[in-house]
């Protein structure tokens, strides 16, 4: 064990090296002097079309209200490459004044206590949904406000196909497979769409099944964090099992190995595919590529083995805005003002207008417009009936980074469900050790 002080300086050395290389690359973070009260903030968001348009609309509205503060939107890649950018820029103190990132377990990996500005004492925190606050908090503070709505990991389906074949919403896995077989037999569409050209889309069978896991064992998330519950055992194993079963039954679209997320959404919109397990943020993709199908594509929870526990797995807003500790002085005040602005109904309306809503808002006083896409309005009944559970990533800080490759392997018939689950348990262990969680 190296003594604490040396460890610190070594970290500083490593980080300094990174900073040096960034400086050498000629990358200068906008250090404009704020004179005359005018403040210029940079705002780093992912380069998704909908994220950028929402961020720009918000920035514009905010500047209209506060003429002294201008906000410049910068972009970064999505997915793991984007994670890299965020982590590196935070570690080197080169982060933009505001940035958008995920809540939940991904946030925990940023070491928020040491890198982000704690906003626990701000008055507007009380206006946020309790589940959301949990997803952006550590034991020592609260760090983010939402930019967007909550959403669900659900089975998107084509309502026309269901109407034509006289099918009903399946409430158990067996009913779901029976529906899929009926669609296969009718030959009208690919029963289940999978899109491994974008590997992250492969995780829904596992992640979206979490409501069923919790229904079976309400303490599962805690046991999982404490190294007691594993994916190789039921109830969590069911997700992997179902993925393999669907592949084995030949229910996937022919081009599942190369199709992309955008293809998948289009397929279920045009009726080429009947089901697509996906997060309901697909509503914005749908509005962009197939606006005519917003009422055709509905959603229902991913069914588990037991029909009595049928319910939604809910994600807190993935687009969450944080302020890094490198933002100081007048910029910090301006940044906090922007965070407060995000918790107003006015900001919610801008978000709903800039982008098709993907689920209910988590800010008090915000409501969805009337003309939301069917896949979002279909969710409301489960929220009203209380048939929802949070996704695992908001209940535990641990999410193994290799899940998407593992689920691709299981869903392509390369790995068995049992082997895949065992590999994922190892992956989870690695992440837990890296996070320094007790008991691993």
């Amino acid at each position, binding site marked *: 064990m190296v003594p604490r002080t040396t460890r610190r300086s070594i970290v500083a050395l490593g980080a300094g090296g990174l900073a040096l290389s960034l400086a050498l690359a000629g990358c200068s973070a906008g250090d404009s002097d704020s004179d005359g009260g005018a403040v210029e903030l940079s705002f780093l968001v992912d380069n998704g079309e909908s994220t950028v348009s929402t961020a720009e609309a918000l920035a514009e509205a905010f500047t209209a209200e506060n003429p002294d503060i201008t906000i410049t939107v910068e972009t970064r890649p999505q997915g*793991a490459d984007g994670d890299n950018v965020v982590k590196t820029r935070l570690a080197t103190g080169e982060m933009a004044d505001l940035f958008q990132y995920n809540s939940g377990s991904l946030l925990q990996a940023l*070491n928020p206590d040491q890198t982000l500005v704690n906003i626990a004492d701000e008055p507007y925190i009380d206006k946020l949904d309790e589940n959301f606050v949990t997803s952006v908090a550590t034991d020592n503070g609260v760090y983010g406000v939402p930019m967007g709505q909550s959403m669900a990991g659900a089975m998107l389906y084509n309502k026309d196909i269901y109407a034509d074949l006289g099918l009903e919403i399946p409430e158990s896995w067996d009913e779901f497979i029976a529906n899929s077989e009926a669609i296969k037999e009718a030959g009208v569409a690919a029963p289940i769409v999978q899109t491994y050209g974008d590997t992250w889309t492969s995780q829904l069978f596992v992640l979206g099944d979490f409501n069923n896991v919790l229904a079976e064992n309400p303490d599962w998330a805690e046991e999982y964090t404490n190294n007691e519950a594993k994916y190789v055992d039921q109830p969590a194993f069911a997700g992997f099992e179902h993925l393999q079963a669907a592949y084995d039954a030949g229910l996937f679209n022919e081009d599942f190995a190369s199709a992309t997320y955008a293809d998948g959404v289009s397929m279920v919109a045009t009726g080429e595919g009947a089901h697509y397990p996906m997060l309901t943020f697909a509503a914005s993709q749908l509005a962009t590529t197939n606006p005519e199908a917003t009422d055709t594509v509905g959603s229902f929870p991913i069914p588990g083995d037991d029909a009595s526990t049928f319910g939604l797995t809910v994600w807190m807003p993935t687009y969450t805005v944080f302020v890094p500790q490198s933002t100081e002085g007048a910029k910090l005040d301006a940044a906090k003002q922007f965070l407060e602005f995000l918790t107003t109904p006015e900001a919610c309306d801008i978000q709903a207008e800039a982008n098709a809503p993907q689920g209910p808002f988590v800010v008090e006083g915000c409501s969805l417009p009337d003309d939301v896409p069917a896949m979002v309005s279909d969710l409301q009944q489960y929220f009203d009936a209380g048939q929802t559970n949070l996704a695992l990533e908001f209940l535990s800080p641990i999410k193994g980074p290799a899940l998407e490759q593992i689920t691709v*392997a299981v869903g392509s018939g390369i790995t068995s469900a049992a082997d895949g689950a065992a590999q994922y348990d190892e992956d989870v262990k690695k992440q837990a050790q890296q996070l*320094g969680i007790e008991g691993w």
Partner: protein
Amino acid sequence: MTTATATGRTATGRTATSPPKPAKRKPMKSPYPSWFFIPAGVFYVVLFLVPTVASFYFSLTRWTLFDVEFIGFDNFIRFFQEPQLVTGFINTFIYAFLTSGAKVVLGLLFGVLLSSQIIGRGFLRATIFFPVLVSTIGVGILFKVLMDPFDGPINETLAAIGIQGPGWLTDPSIALLSVALVDIWKGVGLATLIYIAGMVAIPQEYYEAAKVDGAGAWNNFRHITLPLLRPATVTVVLLSLIGGLRSFDLIWAMTGGGPGFTSDVLASVIYKQYQAGFFGLSTAGNVVLFLVVAAIIFPLSWWLNRKEADQ
């Protein structure tokens, strides 16, 4: 100024004592004083020596960029327990030896072709070298489109003549080979260039003498060209093998190591760990990669060069 002279003098003093013969004019004396090396030395230490030493240290830690915990050899143990790692190791060797072998054979054949008196030789030489100049990522993305199993031009062309093309990048059994194929296409130009340079250097007298002795084309190639191209072959083998062992960009652009883990190589396994924030673990992986490359290249280089010296 004074310090510089002083250090300069000590340096000369040391070199003067080391040679056994008391040379009258300090034979080993460097043409430059020591201060002349300082700029290069500083950059070398900061940019190469410090990171190298630091990487060996960080490979023994659990490192989050914010915090470091010393954990001994745990990273190496964990790295070797990675389920993908065995696949990654095997794939790395398949990929490296396949691309290297193909570049030697094809490079040699193209070299013979393009050093002959062929029409449009300059143009043909430029054409084969062109892929080397293009960005690897660009090539990767282009071929990902070309090799799409359903809408890709390659399979559409095959379909036009009645052949059902395979899922080049999506079929787990051939994904790695497809990438290797593109790598060969992209890299063979460099091998060809080296071979052409080697062939041009062979004196024409040998061929004339062989002609007098009645040697045919095959004998010319087998007994003159091939042996005299040995230095070129050594260069091509070493360069392409090192390139193949640490290959990453093309694989990442085309398959991302997928489907699943089936086309993962050492470098992509390491990169994924870096992406996931396992900085200590991925540094350990890089140390492993360094050792593996060194363990293959040093003996091979020694062996190839010794053979050359024997002749």
